[in-house]
């Protein structure tokens, strides 16, 4: 061996300063750590399982989410409950019931003209169609008792005087002819010319039955996606929406019965949608009147919100909660503990390298290796969703996947540092400590998903999940609106459950602030266990 000066491959003399030496030591430990992790079976097992999970999720995405973009009858008016061949929407238009096969568009409708009401006179005389709601007595000529009833022609058993309230026949349609030729009836519709007397506390309606006419049944598809969301982002007015199918205003309906003109959002404009916007123009609340914009085109709204839900769910559950916790459990727990148990630690520590420094380099090696895997996986997922996602600007998907990758790398760092410290704290029981802590983190993540704000604050998963929420808002600023739309228009895409506006923003709602705060807290979760680990490791004797 000679001590002569060694030049680099291009013949330059190598300069050595404290910094370059530090750099080289770091490089060596990081490289060794990566090589060691690469040589561990458990590494490839956990990588394999993670990849499999993501492949399955992608398959689910292709199979369910992408295929799920077909039109859905969001307001459920394309069904035909009574089986008369007319869908509910068409029955509504004609005012007929969809629970009675004898009633259908054109079947003849009962149009009320007046009623025998609770506080008015108890009887009415005329030639009408009658609707007796309770126990009643009819004198005159009658016809066409619409509700056939087997005992209708039987004589009445015994009706005591005029005491009509003494109704021995229960709560069902019934009629019988009394000894004086009057008819006792309850809960029946019939036609007759005479006088109807209704018992105290009950009411009856009289009117006409319209003429029968022929109406061709509409196909059910006519009532799917028939009332899309009419929103003009450039229109500053808060009143938006148009009742395309007319089931709120009923203005275009063939039968102008009981025009609804609902104003449940109380903005004094019937049948519209109230969009409340922030000072920056972002939509924060959507309140529609009943039956306005209730059946939007699913490939437009449902497609986009399902797509986003899939990415958010995958990011939160698969990346942050599963990969984020399991990868460090397998790879970081033994970063130093295993070296010491295998009896190889002394090779590294008999070199001029501080133990504290050593922990940081080991963790860096682990982080580069596991983080590289996570970033690669998020890039692959980005390709899946960008190429298979619904139409639109899918470039934002790359940003969101990069964000999810970055958040997961931060949680890998935090868990890595925590688990490594646990391995150092108790080489024997560290694995149990780490398992308990992993379960705790998972529980806190579930609480966070359910919207808990305070309890999960002391957990890595809480801040990681909040950071994903914030990243989503930065990459897709209209997510608040989309989530509001999903809630307002009853679109069950999971977006409003799995995504919430970031919780901790000091009331500003700023996603940038939420990201900053999350990074700060996660940094504390990373550095604190490193300091604890360093102080334990510095005093540890290596026998």
């Amino acid at each position, binding site marked *: 061996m000679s001590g002569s000066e060694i030049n680099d491959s291009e013949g330059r003399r190598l300069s050595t300063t404290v910094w370059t030496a530090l750099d080289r*030591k770091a490089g*060596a430990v990081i490289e060794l750590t990566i090589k060691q992790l690469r040589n561990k079976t458990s590494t490839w097992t956990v990588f394999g399982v993670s990849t499999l999970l993501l492949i399955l999720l992608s398959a689910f995405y292709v199979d369910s989410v992408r295929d799920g973009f077909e039109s859905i009858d969001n307001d459920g008016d394309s069904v035909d409950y009574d089986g008369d061949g007319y869908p509910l929407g068409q029955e509504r238009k004609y005012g007929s019931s969809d629970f009675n096969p004898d009633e259908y568009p054109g079947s003849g409708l009962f149009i009320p003209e007046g009623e025998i009401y609770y506080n008015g006179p108890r009887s009415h005389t005329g030639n009408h169609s009658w609707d007796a709601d309770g126990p009643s007595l009819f004198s005159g000529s009658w016809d066409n008792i619409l509700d056939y009833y087997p005992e209708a022609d039987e004589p009445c058993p015994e009706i005591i005087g005029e005491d009509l309230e003494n109704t021995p026949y229960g709560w069902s349609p019934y009629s019988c002819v009394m000894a004086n030729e009057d008819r006792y009836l309850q809960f029946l519709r019939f036609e007759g010319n005479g006088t109807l007397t209704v018992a105290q506390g009950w009411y009856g309606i009289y009117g006409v039955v319209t003429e029968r006419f022929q109406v061709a049944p509409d196909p059910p598809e006519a009532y799917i996606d028939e009332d899309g969301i009419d929103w003009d982002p450039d229109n500053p007015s808060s009143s938006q929406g148009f009742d395309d199918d007319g089931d709120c205003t009923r203005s275009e309906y063939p039968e102008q019965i009981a025009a609804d003109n609902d104003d449940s959002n109380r903005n004094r404009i019937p049948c519209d949608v109230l969009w409340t916007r922030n000072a920056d123009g972002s939509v924060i609340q959507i309140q529609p009147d009943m039956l306005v914009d209730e059946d939007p085109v699913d490939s437009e709204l449902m497609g986009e919100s399902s797509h986003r839900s899939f990415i958010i769910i995958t990011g939160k559950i698969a990346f942050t909660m599963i990969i984020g916790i399991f990868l460090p459990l397998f790879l970081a727990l033994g970063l130093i503990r295993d070296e010491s148990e295998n009896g190889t630690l002394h090779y590294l520590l*008999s070199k001029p390298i501080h133990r504290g420094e050593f922990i940081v380099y080991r963790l860096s090696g682990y982080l580069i290796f596991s983080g590289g895997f996570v970033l690669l996986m998020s890039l692959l997922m980005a390709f899946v969703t960008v190429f298979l996602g619904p139409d639109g600007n899918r470039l934002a998907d790359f940003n969101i996947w990069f964000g999810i990758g970055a958040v997961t790398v931060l949680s890998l760092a935090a868990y890595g540092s925590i688990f490594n410290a646990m391995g150092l704290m108790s080489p024997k029981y560290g694995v149990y400590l780490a398992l308990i802590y992993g379960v705790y983190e998972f529980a806190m993540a579930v609480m966070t998903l359910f919207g808990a704000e305070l309890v999960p604050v002391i957990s890595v998963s809480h801040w990681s999940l909040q950071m994903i929420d914030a990243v989503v808002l930065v990459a897709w600023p209209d997510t608040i609106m989309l989530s509001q739309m999903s809630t307002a228009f009853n679109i069950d895409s999971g977006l409003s459950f799995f995504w919430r506006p970031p919780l901790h923003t000091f009331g500003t709602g700023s996603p940038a602030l939420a990201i900053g705060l999350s990074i700060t807290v996660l940094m504390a979760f990373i550095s604190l266990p490193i300091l604890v680990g360093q102080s334990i490791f510095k005093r540890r004797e290596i026998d």
Partner: protein
Amino acid sequence: MNSTPAIALDHVSKWYGQVIGVNDVSLAIDGGVTGILGMNGAGKSTLFKLLMGRLRPSNGSVKLFGTDPWETTSPYRRVGYVSESEKMYDWMTSLDFVSTLARLHGMTRYEAEKRAEQALSFVDLEGVLNKEIGKYSKGMRQRVKIAAALVHEPDLLILDEPLHGCDPLARTSIMNVIREMGSRGKTVLVSSHILEEIERITEQIVILHSGKLVALGNLHAIRAMLDKHPHRILIRCADSRALASTFIDQQSVYGVRFIDNESLEIMTKDLSEAHQLLPMLILKSGIQIYSIENPDDNLESLLGYLVGDA
């Protein structure tokens, strides 16, 4: 040469709970090869671990080049250490292993590789640089460890049982390396529990027993002291009785014991004189000799003599 010795121990003790590993050892070593002799459990490894900052002394102070190795790692720049542990990164090639450890001294990748190649060829492993360590024989593994300790050209080399379990070829190779390092003026500390091994490497020895330093100095001087101590010489020959009669009237011999017709044990208090006489007496007797052994010429006897309980 710097006035600070490479190694300085001042009343160092190390307790493992109730058990003492090193007991009040004071020592200063600088330059040349020093053998640390002691039976298994005598405290050799503990002493080395204290020197390498792996253990913290319970009492006293340990200094490597004037610096406490428990507090700071800076002395390791000048120290190469081969531990007794046989565990290695079996999946690595020896070049990879040695160059990785070299980089921990702040060398560039290129420089580390060059130095690793040099160090490995210095221990005669140049032909198998790119073979995985797991496929090496025990002696080769030991030499890889030595190469890793030498790669940064340390001023102090600490070798814990480097010859343990090695085949004769590897032993010779390792011994040559140690002697070469010593001849270059480096301080080399090498431990063993076999006297003969150390004898072939160096004359300067430290003897540890039950954690205590029992002797320090030149092996020949210690041996000379030992020669004045009752010694046995075991001779296997064709006729032990006939041979015995030739020894009886010798001054240096104070006892003869028959073991059987072919074995004879001679007791002496002056081993060197007895050895000088032996060839002449055997020649005179004309009896055929099968073997001559010195059963007391080992570490146990030496220790027995030094500690006084043999």
